[in-house]
């Protein structure tokens, strides 16, 4: 299957619950074989959108196409999708093997063949030999694996994951993120993940749709989303970003000249200025694109003086809040704590190096 083949197409999908407009004209394409994430705060419609793929949610208008076929009127139990639920929905009265093999009940194969399929599925998720255990006695991480095996055994065209890691503790979550990526590469099935955790989405996804209030605010690969957020809202939701007030001096061709408070006049490429939104103009800067200069160092591009306002020590990193050039504009920047680089104190005078190409203009 070609990497660029569309697997799921949303065509102007609207969903109303009574008067509430939950999905407001979603149009997007999810490609075959990709790890796709729907990311957004709670109530943004991401789970609703996922459930329209599974067939648990009807749409009010528009169309959902799965592998080229319109899914209108196709019930959930015959769609070529399977889902991993937020609560895992492991059947508590069945064994692990009965849970995993549940979807094979209508499969015409012999029970010996089905048994082998269950064993393979369990092995794939690292639960070999767990088949005879009672499902209600498993730990959270094990339930998650059973839910995965149960969904993947049917070899669906699309695997839907509804906040699958939210119930796990941090260590377990990070481990499962890596395992999910590995599993997705191994089986080659299209994965659609719903999450409110931007870090999780960045780590796992090939592409991410950021949703706010029933609309897709931006659909891009993780790096684009992080480096070139399309709006201030997206920038604010993904990672940390400093916003510095600025005025637009001139705009000509593919160049925009601005005057950012504390940074001074800067010339930006038009690619750094996503389409107009009508807000008061600000420039965004990620903390790691700012660097403190120590004695004897000089900036390769631009340099601004500042005063340290706050020091937040994280062990491997230190975060500094710095006032820029005698203004009340404060930026947060992060420095790795490598040997020979002392941690600074509050009120220390510093020089901050930055690069115009790291700026994003929101206006």
């Amino acid at each position, binding site marked *: 299957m070609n990497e660029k083949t569309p697997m799921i197409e949303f065509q102007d999908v609207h969903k109303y619950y009574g008067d509430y407009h939950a999905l407001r004209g979603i149009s997007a394409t999810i490609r075959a074989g990709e790890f796709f994430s729907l990311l957004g705060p709670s109530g943004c419609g991401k789970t609703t959108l996922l459930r329209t793929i599974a067939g648990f949610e009807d749409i009010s208008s528009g169309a959902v196409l799965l592998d080229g076929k319109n899914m209108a009127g196709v019930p959930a139990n015959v769609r070529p999708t399977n889902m991993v639920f937020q609560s895992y*929905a492991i*059947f*508590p*009265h069945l064994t692990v093997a009965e849970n995993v093999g549940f979807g094979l009940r209508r499969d015409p194969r012999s029970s010996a063949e089905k048994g082998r399929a269950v064993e393979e599925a369990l092995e794939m998720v690292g639960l070999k030999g767990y088949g005879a255990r009672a499902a209600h006695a498993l730990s959270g991480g094990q339930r998650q694996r059973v839910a995965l095996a149960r969904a993947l055994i049917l070899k669906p065209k699309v695997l839907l994951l509804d906040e699958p890691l939210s*119930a796990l503790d941090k260590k377990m979550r990070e481990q499962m993120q890596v395992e999910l990526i590995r599993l997705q590469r191994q089986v080659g099935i299209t994965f659609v993940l719903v999450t409110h955790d931007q870090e999780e989405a960045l780590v796992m996804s090939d592409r991410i749709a950021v949703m706010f209030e029933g609309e897709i605010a931006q659909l891009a690969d993780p790096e684009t989303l992080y480096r070139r957020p399309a709006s201030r809202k997206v920038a604010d939701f993904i990672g940390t970003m400093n916003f510095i007030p600025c005025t637009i001096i001139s705009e000509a061709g593919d160049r925009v000249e601005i005057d950012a408070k504390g940074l001074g006049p800067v010339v930006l490429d038009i690619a750094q200025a996503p389409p107009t939104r009508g807000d008061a103009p600000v420039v965004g800067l990620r903390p790691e694109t700012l660097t403190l200069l120590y004695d004897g160092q000089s900036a390769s591009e631009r340099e601004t003086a500042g005063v340290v306002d706050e020091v937040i020590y994280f062990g491997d990193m230190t975060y500094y809040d710095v006032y820029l050039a005698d203004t009340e504009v404060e930026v947060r920047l992060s420095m790795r704590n490598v040997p020979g680089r002392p941690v600074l104190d509050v009120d220390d005078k510093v020089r901050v190096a930055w690069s115009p190409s790291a700026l994003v203009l929101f206006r």
Partner: protein
Amino acid sequence: MKAPGLRAYAIFYLLFLYAPILLLPIFAFNDAVVIAFPLEGFTTRWFVEMWEDPQLWNALQNSLIISTVVASIATLLGLFAARASTRYRFPAQTSILGLIMLPLVLPEIVVAMSLIVVLVAIGIPLSIFTIILGHVLITTPFAVTILSSAFQTLDRSLEEAAYDLGESAASTFRLIILPLVMPGIISSFLICFIISLDEYIIASFLGGTQPVLSTYIFGQFRFPAKVPAVLALGTILVLISIILLAFAEYMRRRGIAKAGGNTSGGAR
């Protein structure tokens, strides 16, 4: 213990509650017609006398038919109501559920009187059937309560998961929902059964000439010579009630532990 008064109060309370029931077997085995201390000696003849009374067997047969039918109907109705109230939203939901639960607090004598007026007016003869009608009315709220809690602890996504894995709505109900609420169904059945079995007012008002266990016992109490045999019967009924209720409670707890306790996974 900090407050000896409270302890005495608790002991007195429990004595008041259970001592009379404990007296039941004591006098059932006492070799005297008069119910009084001192005890006269051990005998099992009251049990024999009770056993050989054909009226008792007639009443018992009626009671068992009534209780079984009542428990089945009430549990089935409770199943529908509990499913509807936990799974769907519909207009006037709370009012409708409130009305279903109302017989729980309505004086039984009022229910009995109004039913008898209506039944006589329609011209339905009083019989076992009319007792069943009355008992279904008063036991359904119990069934609804027990089954609602069984359905509430059922994770909605279990159903969706079965459906997602290719099952139909009917097979999902059979394979997933029914086994998981089965303890609730059993517990509801047993409790409705017991309530119907020892109910007196409705049975006496709507029973016509048909005796049931409770009206039979009340009738026997008028004859002092029959009292010890009734106590023997009472002893057996207490035993059966305790066993059934304990089993019902065991099933209910097992149901909650299995269906609700830990389906959501994660940090436990």
